């Protein structure tokens, strides 16, 4: 039942690993309040009973079993080995945070109390953490006035550990932690971040960094501190040398170590057991062309075991792995699917209301605080209540059976259960309603546990009164409840993919391989997109053979209809039911849309581009390497300028792939001509993840990296017919002048034509005109309009492997729609209460966040048209409608008012 009595009574306390050992939990426990299942479990290593058993003695204690009202504790349970026959395996074991205590001499984590790890700090900030969200330092529980973050702890480091890669997420989480800490602090808090390169390369990351720096006054110090000493008051003295070479001595109240991500030992074990190939860092090895496929067919990998990454990219890979597995198993779709069946429902619309109220004791959870009997007696006095019962545990199987029995015996047509939270138990009771042949929406829950007995355990009388209030409100609402049927709309089992680059083709092929029709629409007369200009992936594999194969498969696939030289003319409809007209005259119906229209490099008006033929953009250099290597062999000096257009006020984002691309090309130059001087003029090197290997290699072969700031950008001139570049080296503090044979500009990547497309599809863009996903973290490939998905550069610049993973993810999400014959929607959505009143003013259309309302012409004039398939039931329309024409099923004004009146007039 998850009542928690066992944990209350358990005498054994151990360190709580969820809070990194900063507080205690019991030997019988749930890991955290939101976990699923919310059931208590015994930690065998800590349990007094099992400790005795495991050392060959007789088990003693039994406190949990003694107090459990429901006999739910069984010490005899044994481990069982299951033999499963499955079609595919997905490995998602995640990461472990780098443990700095292994290198205590350097990080002083274990020695100094006020040095904490970033995971510790997450828990210190969390409202559910060991300090209830109060920002205090461990030594004296006082609020710190200054905190320093040390970046790259266990990352980009071959001296202290073997994690040479960049952990990809620490720069951002350190900024986040500092931001939240500043917000939590009652007094001003000085936040300082010691870093090597600030790697804020993702969507909206750079703006976040700018906000931290410019608006919140965070200090960013470019260096690795070398010594930490604990002062007498337990504050920490940090000695460091800044990038001008000045030595500093500074005290901080706390230090947070931004620990890197590494494959966990259990993940490595799992990988070895599965017999998949691991890379040199023990991440699962994958190809840039098949980013979620391991070396073993049928075994896929997703998340941080594939490489360090943030949440949205983990979620993308999760869906990508699902898509890859589903393509293998497409012929067995539905083979093992289980569908519940229920008896036909009784039509209660003409019946007099007969309500049953079931009041639950929840063991002693409710019963020990609330006078359940008094509440039950009170319930009998409420309108239309014909049957009242008290239960020890309403959710137990026998109580469920009895509930169904009572519905039948007393011909009940409304049910109120006063018990725990609908969040966890409503589906269970609703299922019982269905089993008893009653529509599940005739059910209402009154939460007298979580909202009453648990929070008012000190005042039994008041808790009982509140329980009566809640029951009265539940009954008032239930009296007005009506049967609702799920809304079903047919689904056209085909997808339209916009954009014929690698992302679009990958998405199209996966959906086609899964057995669904795809219309692949490309503006140009040829498939391939910008990838046609790419020489190789960041792992060094040639792109051309892969791309040629992709194009061939897309053209040949029986489920794919390719439309070249075609653009959208009109798109109408909603999830499962779109209709599209193309400029070529073609038109078709489809159930989903995937937007993969890519992006473009921006125009440059600086650095003599367009004036001097030896100033090039990135793909020009790649072409030169490919087609004219002799000119490189004869050259003396080459310069690359990073961040051309990117990270500037007009385009405040990082284009993400230029650093690695520039470095890869620079390495090629150096390999063609080892005597060539290669200068990289950069702002931060952002070779995240394993791309750091490229950076390390570039430095080891003598490529020269010179940093510049936005206020002292490099100067490019023509002097005596030759190019001359002047840049101020911040380390030396004086200008360096070089005369390169050629200069490569790493120009920003920007969306193109997305505004028109967004208008046509009625979807939203972010400030930089990239398409905006429904949720930055958890729905990274979906638009907020149902049935529409995105992938590739149109979402944000990213390397080929990430484009492919994202394309597979978009395909996976699209197939969750296409694999069903109908789009079925729970009926808690917007509905007309008075259609006549609607004037078709369009206010609700403008405010609906999901594009779920449209306007239609009807014989009675203009009216709102509700697209239930896209509605999420937020109710903004209901609260807005000036004609009171529209409301939300099961939450309409009359029902809400009835609940309020029941409470206020009791």
């Amino acid at each position, binding site marked *: 039942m998850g009542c928690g009595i066992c944990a209350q009574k358990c005498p054994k306390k151990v360190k709580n690993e969820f809070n990194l050992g900063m507080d205690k939990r019991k030997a019988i426990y749930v890991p955290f309040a939101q*976990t699923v299942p919310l059931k208590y479990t015994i930690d065998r290593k800590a349990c007094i009973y099992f400790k005795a058993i495991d050392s060959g003695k007789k088990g003693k204690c039994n406190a949990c079993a003694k107090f459990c009202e429901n006999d739910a504790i069984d010490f005899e349970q044994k481990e069982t080995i299951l033999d499963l*026959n*499955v079609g595919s395996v*997905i490995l998602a074991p995640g990461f472990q945070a780098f443990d700095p205590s292994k290198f205590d001499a350097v990080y002083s984590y274990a020695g100094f109390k006020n040095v904490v790890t970033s995971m510790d700090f997450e828990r210190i*900030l969390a409202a559910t953490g060991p300090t209830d969200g109060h920002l205090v330092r461990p030594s004296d529980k006082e609020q710190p006035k200054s905190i320093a973050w040390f970046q790259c702890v266990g990352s980009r480091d071959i001296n202290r550990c073997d994690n040479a890669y960049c952990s990809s997420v620490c720069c951002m989480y350190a900024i986040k932690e500092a931001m939240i800490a500043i917000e939590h602090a009652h007094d001003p808090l000085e936040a300082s971040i010691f870093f090597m390169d600030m790697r804020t390369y993702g969507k909206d990351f750079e703006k976040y960094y700018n906000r931290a720096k410019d608006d919140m006054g965070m200090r960013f110090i470019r260096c690795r501190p070398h010594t930490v000493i604990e002062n007498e008051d337990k504050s920490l003295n940090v000695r460091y040398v800044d990038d001008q070479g000045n030595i500093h001595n500074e005290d901080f109240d706390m230090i947070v170590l931004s620990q890197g991500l590494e494959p966990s030992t259990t993940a490595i074990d799992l990988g070895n057991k599965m017999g998949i190939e691991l890379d040199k860092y023990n991440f699962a090895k994958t190809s840039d062309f098949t980013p979620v496929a391991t070396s073993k067919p049928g075994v896929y990998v997703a998340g*941080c075991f594939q490489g360090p990454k943030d949440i949205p990219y983990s979620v993308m890979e999760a869906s990508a792995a699902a898509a890859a597995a*589903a393509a293998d198993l497409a*012929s067995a779709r539905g083979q093992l699917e289980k569908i519940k069946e229920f008896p036909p429902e009784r039509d209660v619309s003409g019946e007099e209301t007969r309500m049953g109220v079931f009041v639950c004791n929840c063991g002693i959870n409710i019963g020990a605080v609330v006078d359940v009997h008094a509440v039950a007696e009170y319930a009998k006095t409420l309108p239309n209540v014909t049957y009242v019962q008290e239960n020890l545990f309403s959710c137990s199987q026998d109580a469920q059976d009895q509930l169904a029995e009572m519905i039948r015996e007393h011909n009940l047509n409304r049910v109120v259960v006063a018990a725990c939270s609908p969040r966890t138990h409503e589906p269970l009771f609703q299922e019982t309603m269905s089993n008893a042949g009653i529509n599940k929406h005739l059910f209402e829950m009154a939460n007298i546990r979580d909202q009453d007995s648990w929070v008012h355990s000190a005042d039994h009388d008041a808790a009982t009164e509140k329980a009566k209030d809640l029951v009265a409100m539940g009954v008032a609402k239930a009296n007005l409840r009506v049967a609702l049927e799920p809304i079903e709309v047919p689904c056209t089992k085909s997808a339209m993919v916009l954009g014929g680059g690698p992302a679009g083709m990958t998405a199209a092929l996966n959906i086609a391989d899964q057995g669904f029709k795809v219309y692949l629409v490309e503006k140009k007369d040829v498939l391939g997109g910008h990838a046609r200009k790419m020489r190789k992936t960041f792992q060094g594999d040639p792109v051309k053979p892969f791309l040629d194969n992709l194009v061939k498969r897309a053209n040949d696939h029986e489920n794919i209809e390719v439309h070249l030289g075609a653009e959208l003319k009109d798109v109408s409809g909603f999830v499962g039911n779109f209709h599209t007209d193309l400029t070529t005259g073609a038109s078709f119906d489809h159930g989903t849309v995937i937007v993969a229209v890519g992006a473009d490099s921006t125009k440059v008006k600086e650095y003599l581009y367009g004036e001097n033929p030896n100033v090039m953009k990135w793909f020009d250099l790649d072409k030169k390497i490919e087609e004219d290597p002799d000119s490189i062999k004869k050259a003396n000096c080459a310069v690359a300028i990073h961040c051309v257009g990117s990270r500037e006020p007009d385009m405040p984002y990082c284009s993400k792939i230029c650093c690695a691309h520039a470095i890869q090309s620079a390495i090629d130059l150096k390999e063609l001509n080892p005597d060539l001087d290669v200068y990289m003029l950069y702002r931060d090197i952002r070779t995240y993840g394993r791309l750091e290997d490229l950076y390390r290699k570039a430095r080891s072969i003598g490529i020269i990296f010179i940093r510049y700031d936005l206020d002292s950008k490099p100067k490019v001139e023509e002097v005596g017919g030759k190019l001359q570049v002047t840049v101020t080296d911040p380390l030396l503090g004086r200008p360096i002048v070089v005369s390169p044979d050629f200069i490569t500009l790493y120009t920003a990547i920007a969306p193109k034509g997305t505004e028109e497309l967004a208008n046509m599809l009625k979807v939203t863009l972010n400030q930089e005109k990239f398409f905006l996903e429904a949720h930055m973290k958890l729905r990274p490939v979906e638009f907020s309009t149902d049935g529409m998905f995105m992938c590739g550069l149109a979402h944000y610049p990213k390397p080929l492997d990430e484009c492919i993973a994202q394309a597979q993810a978009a395909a996976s999400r699209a197939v969750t729609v296409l694999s069903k014959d109908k789009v079925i929607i729970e009926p808690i959505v917007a509905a007309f209460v008075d259609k006549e009143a609607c004037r078709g003013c369009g206010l609700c259309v403008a405010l609906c966040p999901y594009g779920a309302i449209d306007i239609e012409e009807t014989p009675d004039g203009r009216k709102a048209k509700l697209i239930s398939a896209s509605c999420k039931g937020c109710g903004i329309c209901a609260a807005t409608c000036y004609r009171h024409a529209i409301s939300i099923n099961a939450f309409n004004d009359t029902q809400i008012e009835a609940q309020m009146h029941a409470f206020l007039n009791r």
Partner: protein
Amino acid sequence: MAGKDVVGSVLIAGGGIVGMQSALDLADSGFYVHLVERSPGIGGIMAQLDKTFPTNECAM
């Protein structure tokens, strides 16, 4: 892969955000999923995070 030997189920090792998302996608597409997690509950490391960047949203 083709033919009647194909088994329409997938085993997913890991009940964090990734395992859960894979499981939901596959189950929603007509496959049976065995979701295996080492600890007593699903949720993974994301549940331990306070807020998430770049929107400072609650991780729960």
